């Protein structure tokens, strides 16, 4: 009896979370007639294929929009932002957790609070800065600005993660004849790998979802990232190209979802440690 309830509840949540996804999936491959007829014909069953599936939307996405280009742009931005974030936030997190001592706590909190400043407040100054640097309508603008979100958050994350990692291996290395710096360079990186993965995953999430800054700084179609290009190109006025929209969502989210599942446990660990133990 209890099992039945459990399965029913699990099913309920799966449907809640998965149904829109299923909707996405069939919408991406439905013929337009099948998609839009439901509004006027009440006997139409919307959650199945009434007509044979079609690749039209996928073709539209790849043929008539710059989708492949956007994917490429997104990858460029993701890689650059991830590199900057890892290079800046990981040492900072390490420093806060291990090196600076008592005022590390306060500083870490301070850095974290900057994460709370709403982008809506910052994009006005940012737009001035970007034009000052001549980065309007270039991926460089996004690569410059995104770390303002990832660095505070990831510094905090790495700090929290490191607090959950015992110190003794690093201390052992100091006794074994290494300077503090040598320990940081030779021993610590291996211990922080899960933290670094978490940082990369977070960066991916951000860049794939971020819309505000992309909208503010990018205007040419061939410079857009997926999160900006897709809605801009496929929502024209109040005409939504639902099929192609969904196809785009599908293609970007499936790989990401797989990655998340692989790193989930570590991500949580870094996350909650930083929060609760912070």
């Amino acid at each position, binding site marked *: 009896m209890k099992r039945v309830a459990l399965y029913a509840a699990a099913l309920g949540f799966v449907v809640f979370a998965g149904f829109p996804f299923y909707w996405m999936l069939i919408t991406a491959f439905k013929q337009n007639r099948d998609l839009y007829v439901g509004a006027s014909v009440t006997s139409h069953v919307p959650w199945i294929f009434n007509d044979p599936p079609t690749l039209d939307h996928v073709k539209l996405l790849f043929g008539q929009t710059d989708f492949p280009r956007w994917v490429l742009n997104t990858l460029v931005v993701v890689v650059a932002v991830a590199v900057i974030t890892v290079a800046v936030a990981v040492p900072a997190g390490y420093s806060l957790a291990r090196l600076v001592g008592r005022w590390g706590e306060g500083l870490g909190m301070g850095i974290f609070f900057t994460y709370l400043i709403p982008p809506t407040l910052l994009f006005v100054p940012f737009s001035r800065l970007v034009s000052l640097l001549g980065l309007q309508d270039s991926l460089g603008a996004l690569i410059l600005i995104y770390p303002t979100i990832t660095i505070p958050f990831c510094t905090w994350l790495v700090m929290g993660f490191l607090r959950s990692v*015992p110190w*003794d*291996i690093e*201390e*052992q290395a100091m*006794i*074994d004849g290494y300077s503090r710096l040598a320990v940081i360079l030779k021993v610590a990186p291996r211990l922080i790998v899960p933290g670094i993965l978490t940082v990369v995953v977070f960066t991916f999430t951000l860049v794939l979802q971020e819309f505000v800054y992309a909208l503010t700084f990018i205007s040419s179609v061939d410079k857009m990232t997926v999160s900006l290009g897709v809605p801009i190109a496929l929502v024209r006025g109040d005409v939504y190209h639902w099929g192609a929209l969904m196809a785009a969502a599908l293609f970007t989210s499936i790989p990401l979802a797989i990655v998340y599942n692989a790193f989930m446990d570590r991500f949580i660990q870094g996350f909650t440690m930083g929060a609760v133990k912070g």
Partner: protein
Amino acid sequence: MAGIEIRNLRKHFGDLHAVDGVTLSIHDGEFLVLLGSSGSGKTTLLRMIAGLERPTSGEIHIGDQRVDGDVPPRARGIAMVFQSYALYPHRTVFQNIAFPLEASRTPRKQIEEKVRWAAELFSISRYLDRYPRQLSGGERQRVALCRALVRDPKVFLLDEPLANLDAKLRNTARDDLKRFQRRIKTTTVYVTHDQVEAMGLGDRIVVMERGKVRQIGTPQEVYEEPVDTFVATFVGQPPMNLLEARDPALPGRTLLGFRPEHFLPKGVFGPSDDTRPFRFAVRRVEYLGSDRYVYGSVVEAGAAPGEVTIIAKLPATIALPIPEGETHEFAVPRRALRYFDADTGLKRAP
């Protein structure tokens, strides 16, 4: 080879005085045990010797070098084994042991020789290509000792290295450790909260409590001549019995102390033995195979039975039946009695 001199060493964490004025002289080649419960400051003291914590004040000398201020851990000529063994998880046993040698830029060939020699010594040669996670607790512990050994340190620092082993393994590991130290004759400072370990291993024991040294002495001195009631009850299992003396011959407020194994039925002693008799109201008898523990309280003439629980430890060689709930004649040899000031806890002459 070097001794260690510690002078008036302090470490304060804010209001907490983790180490509160410790002065200590560790001889060259000695096996010294720092014994105390958690929070006694023993680990902090060890970490200051290692250079992992900076003292608030005071001096540490290793050999003829003063190290407390400016000498980083790597330059102190020490080796340390942590409770967790702190093996590098991504390196094989060989690479773990070689790690300190790499730091000192030892030539490849020499590293190879030295690692094999040390591994042979601890009989872990078979495991050299394995990773720490593939080893048992006892094997890990030996790898950690091996790694400490290859540095040729002036001083070994060991932080509860046996605490993570199961009870059976701990005995053999203790024996191995002691034999090993006798052989290489390197000054060793060993931290533990386990008094059995401390007694078994130490040439001398330093009993610590709340950042202060209570007593320094050989295991025998610490056990037989505790300087205060803290040491008396901390060392020994079951602890020393303490009882307010109602003896007009003694100064007021004196505590009598005696070890449970000295508290025996009166009949056990011969007529020539000089003993102090007690009437012992037995509550309960615990049969433990080699011993019997007898719990009860002492009834003084003209007074209500004392509230303090007194324990007698009877070896299996004493077969005398001790029925529960009855009062028996017990006695302690006078030479085994210790006297403490009830107010300060300090030892005093009879």
